[in-house]
């Protein structure tokens, strides 16, 4: 405690902006040691994930209400989705999560930068594969006239309710895709930092946080699969 208060201030009077990613670095001003700093940041990430859960929660609620109101239209809408693509994408995300977990494992057990960076790269590539497949699905919906506003050709009784399903489909998968894109960007940054040798077996906090975020986005998709694709045959 006392020693950190003696640390000189930098020119901006910004006493807190000391970058601490290397093992040799001292903890930030407000922390007693690196252990506390790591625990605090990871805890902060969990709180953030809970806010993300509530964000998606609102979408899940809308889904629940409308599905309860219009079960037939939701089943009909679901039949317009391509289960093969949805299933493949699920597998892609699960394997990408494994890559992230292996990356953290590599960071904590070996000092080899290349191994860590490779696992991260694999995760990022799988994330991009997911986005490409998702984009292809969107394109198919557009072609088939299942994209409200841009190209909507479904008509007949109850088409309004099917449209509601597609609105929710695009809202839920869209918000998920935005999150995944952020995840890919984060992993990209992590790759750079890994190559720069920023991480050590006892200093990997940013990796850990990126991993938590990535797995969370994965979990959201795991629920989107049954809710959107597997309603009824």
């Amino acid at each position, binding site marked *: 405690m006392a020693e950190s208060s003696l640390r000189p201030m930098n020119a901006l009077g910004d006493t807190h902006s000391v970058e601490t990613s290397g093992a040799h670095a001292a903890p930030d001003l407000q922390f007693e040691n690196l252990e506390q700093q790591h625990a605090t940041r990871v805890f902060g990430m969990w709180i953030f994930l809970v806010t993300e859960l509530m964000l998606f929660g609102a979408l899940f609620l809308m889904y629940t209400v409308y599905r309860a109101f219009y079960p037939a239209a939701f089943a009909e809408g679901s039949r317009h989705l391509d289960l093969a693509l949805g299933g493949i994408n699920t597998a892609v995300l699960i394997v990408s999560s494994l890559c992230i977990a292996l990356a953290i494992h590599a960071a904590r057990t070996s000092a080899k930068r290349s191994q860590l960076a490779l696992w991260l790269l694999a995760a990022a590539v799988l994330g991009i594969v997911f986005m490409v497949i998702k984009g292809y699905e969107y394109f198919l919906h557009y072609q088939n006239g299942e994209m409200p506003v841009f190209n909507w050709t479904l008509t007949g*009784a109850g088409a309004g309710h099917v449209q509601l399903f597609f609105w929710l489909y695009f809202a839920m998968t869209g918000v998920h895709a935005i999150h995944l894109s952020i995840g890919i960007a984060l992993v990209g940054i992590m790759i750079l930092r890994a190559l720069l040798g920023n991480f050590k077996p006892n200093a990997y906090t940013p990796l850990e946080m990126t991993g938590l975020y990535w797995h969370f986005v994965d979990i959201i998709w795991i629920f989107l699969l049954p809710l959107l694709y597997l309603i009824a045959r």
Partner: protein
Amino acid sequence: MASQVDMLFFTLLAMSVAVVVVIAGLIVYFGYKYRRRPENLVADQIQGSMRLEIAWSVIPLLIAMGIFVWGARLYFEMASPPAQARDVYVVAKQWMWEFQHQDGMREINALHVPLGEPVRLTMVSQDMIHSFFVPAFRVKQDVLPQRYTTAWFQATQPGTYHLFCAEYCGTLHSGMVGDVVVMAPQDFQTWSSQGDAETPAEAGEHLFAQFGCINCHKADNSGRGPALAGVFGRTVTFADGTTTVADENYIRESILNPDAHVVKGYEPIMPSFQGQLNEDQLLQLLAYIKSLGAKQP
């Protein structure tokens, strides 16, 4: 109803005055008695008292539950109109109120009702959410687009009362006002006999024929759709085994989204009439289907 609401309101008022007097009185009394003086520089350190804490949690809770039950009973009464109530159809739109009486009278921004007779409103909005509010009758109910809501009241004094829109609905929200005119029953008779327009049920019968409903919904149940006599208020069973009471909103859904709930034993072949009927016409069809029920023994 107004007097019952006021009874609860003024009971609450008496209680809150008592609480405010006690709290404010204690603050002033303690504040004066224990003001800082040279001989009173050190306070007594009192940590608290579990007994007091429990007392002032449990007692207010019991009182609050009493008020809850009282308020809920009133609300339930407000939600259950008497069976013999006079039906009035209300269509709200930016920024006016349209009323249609069962005997054919139509009016805008004014509602004439007979004294002492319960009036049941079936309301729907053509655009935004509005709210039907007559302060004198202590009645308020939001009027929603695409869905019927109901309210009822019974006037006890002749006179003219304010009608307000209580849910903000756009620029001229404060202009969406009208009058409720309560007339003696015989005066009301005279007033309502001035109209020579067809009644909503008659209009509905014409629509029923005009839109071809009659081709499938045959009275003798030989058509491709179920016969509608007596269906209103009855419990209907759907193809998937679930049931519902055929109320205003169910009839509405059956016309606009017939596929949503198909009655057991029938094919989902009815076309949707979404966009072909305006709110007035839907209410007229509703009135007709209701009147069919009335003809049943």
